[in-house]
């Protein structure tokens, strides 16, 4: 009984410490956003203060910010739709162990994922200007496939590996096509895993900086860039910038709260084969 209690105490100590360390810096940004400028950087810290909400209002009303927020949402949705539409069939195929060339394709996917940004932003900039994808949400969603597609295929393949092959066999005997087998059998079973993948993809696209900087201008500017925009020369607005950072974290945090169970469940489906 006693060792068990001690082990529990240990686990909780570790967990709570880690949670506090993780949360504290974010709390700190929120506090800068809610304090007036005089208190924001006071040391020792001012713990009790009347919250000032105007920084949030100012951040949201700043021209281009809400538009950028919407752009980011659209990029995340489109990027995920593309990655799944293309990646699910591919993942199904790559799950067939005897498929020739499987290994080569998996390595190729990894190569796509590992390409450093500065290798491809300039060529893609030149190309996008010519074909009209520059400064468009679609263009961004397409180029993000460079990392979302490999990541999606890699993970989805693992989830599909856990789906019992006998189910597919049975369906095939009843005359189902491969296409039907994928969407009617594999996808529903692996759904939690797909949700987890979508979330991890969204996080990555939401926070991406370098590619968005090079390939967008006014119309498709993303929210990460908009936050950086509060850093005006000789006139940095710490309150509004912190408030903007918090606004940007919010949808992702909401995601985390709603989805953390699914992420864990989903990923645990496909993790061990």
């Amino acid at each position, binding site marked *: 009984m006693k060792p068990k209690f001690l082990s529990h105490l240990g686990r909780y100590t570790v967990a709570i410490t880690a949670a506090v360390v993780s949360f504290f810096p974010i709390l700190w940004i929120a506090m800068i956003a809610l304090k007036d400028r005089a208190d924001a950087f006071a040391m020792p810290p001012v713990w009790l203060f009347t919250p000032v909400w105007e920084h949030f209002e100012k951040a949201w009303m700043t021209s281009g910010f809400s538009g950028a927020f919407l752009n980011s949402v659209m990029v995340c949705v489109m990027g995920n739709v593309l990655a799944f539409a293309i990646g699910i069939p591919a993942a199904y195929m790559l799950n067939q162990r005897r498929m020739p060339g499987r290994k080569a394709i998996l390595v190729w996917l990894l190569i796509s994922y590992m390409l450093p940004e500065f290798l491809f932003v300039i060529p893609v900039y030149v190309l996008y200007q010519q074909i009209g994808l520059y400064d468009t949400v679609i263009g961004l969603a397409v180029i993000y496939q460079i990392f979302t597609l490999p990541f999606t295929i890699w993970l989805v393949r693992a989830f599909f590996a856990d789906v019992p092959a006998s189910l597919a066999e049975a369906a095939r005997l009843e005359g189902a096509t491969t296409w039907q087998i994928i969407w009617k059998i594999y996808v529903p079973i692996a759904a939690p895993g797909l949700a987890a993948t979508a979330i991890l993809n969204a996080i990555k696209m939401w926070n991406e900086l370098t590619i968005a900087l090079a390939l967008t*201008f006014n119309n498709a500017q993303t929210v990460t860039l908009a936050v950086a925009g509060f*850093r005006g*020369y*000789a*006139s940095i607005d710490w309150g509004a910038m912190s408030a903007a950072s918090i606004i940007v974290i919010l949808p992702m945090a909401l995601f985390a709260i709603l989805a953390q169970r699914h992420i864990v469940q989903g990923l645990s489906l496909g993790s061990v084969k």
Partner: protein
Amino acid sequence: MAARIHRRLLLSALALASLTAPAFAFDWKAQSGQEITVMVSENPWTTGLRAHIAEFEAETGIKVTLTAFAEDLYSDRMNLAVRSTESVADAYMVQMDSALFEQWSADAVEPLSPYLADTAKTDAGYDLEDYPAGFRAGASFPVDDRAAQLYAIPISFETYILFYNKDLVAKYLDGKVPATMDDLITAAATVSAAGEGKDFGATMRGKLSAELVDTMTGIVFDAWGGDAVKLPENVWFDGDWTKPRFNDAKIAKGLSYYAGLLKAGPPSVMSYGWEDASRFFADGHAAFFVDASVFGPSFESPDSSKVAGKVGYAPLPPSAGDVGYSGHWSWGISIPKNSQKKDAAWLFLQWATGKAMTNEFGKLTGGAPRLSSWDDAGYKAALNPEYVAAVQTQMQHTRPTSVFREGWSEVVLQIVDTIQQIAGGADPQEATNALQDQLAGTFQ
């Protein structure tokens, strides 16, 4: 009675005529219906522009899309935009230094001289001569050429001056503002030694970045003194690219001043960009701050500063003799060659750099580049009088900080390395000797 009415009619007719007269001379509506995109960096000037842009739209019938961006990221995006084949923006803010020079070398920027010479395109009251000759020369290429054309118009200039916290100077230095550069370094060290880790002698930009080139060059000019300096090579070369002199004793001295101020700074000063350094000063922790005059107005605003009303302003203290030299630098506005709407863009440039708007925007930047602004009562009244006095004095002894050479910012980073070495204890002469050796092969 009838005569009276008649006279009134005549008067109002005259008044009407005089009101509309300029419109006959210059047609601001010539490009009505056009839409232009203006690409700007976040800056107090941009704040002013946002507040007044509707006036321009009403006056000209041109619709303006403003797209603004943080300075460090702005440069990259702007450089891509002006060089691309497709038009991205019709007018843009540009650093009037090697950035503009490199764009000119890449044939990416439109010469403005033809527009200025065309009376159909430029209002007679524009008055280009109102800009100091040095500012115009800094944006005219080829450098030192009779046929040089103007490629940008200054919108906000800055010069590098001394900001001091009056409370801290009173507390630690008996209210004595240092009279020479050496005194300043000693005084800064004194404050830091006595400040118990709370108050520091100085705050400076110390982060490895090409951004601090202008402040640094300003301080080097102070050490350099009155001897002539020639463009495009500037102080770093003896009049010729083949003769670098990074280890000149006066340059070594200038860099050691910068390093001395860094040394008196807070412990993490080497990670400070301008936003951290200026925040540290605005929060009242540093006695001295040497940087761009453009920070002045934000220090006087109680919303962003705890030291409002307690800041002193002075030209850089001289390193030798009576005059403290410094540098100046400027943001400008230009038209990219790839723009399809250059005439509308030129109307925008003309309006934004005209006398009225220069005064308006200057109230926010504290650096109106037109000479007439500094005689304008409204402009001066908007700024702290000590600030105005300091900047006006400094302006008489500044040189441009630019070096017109491709890849110059890589050299700047190596100079910053040298400053960081000196601040870390290296001997200034030895450190600059090493810099000279390192760079010797780079220039032909």
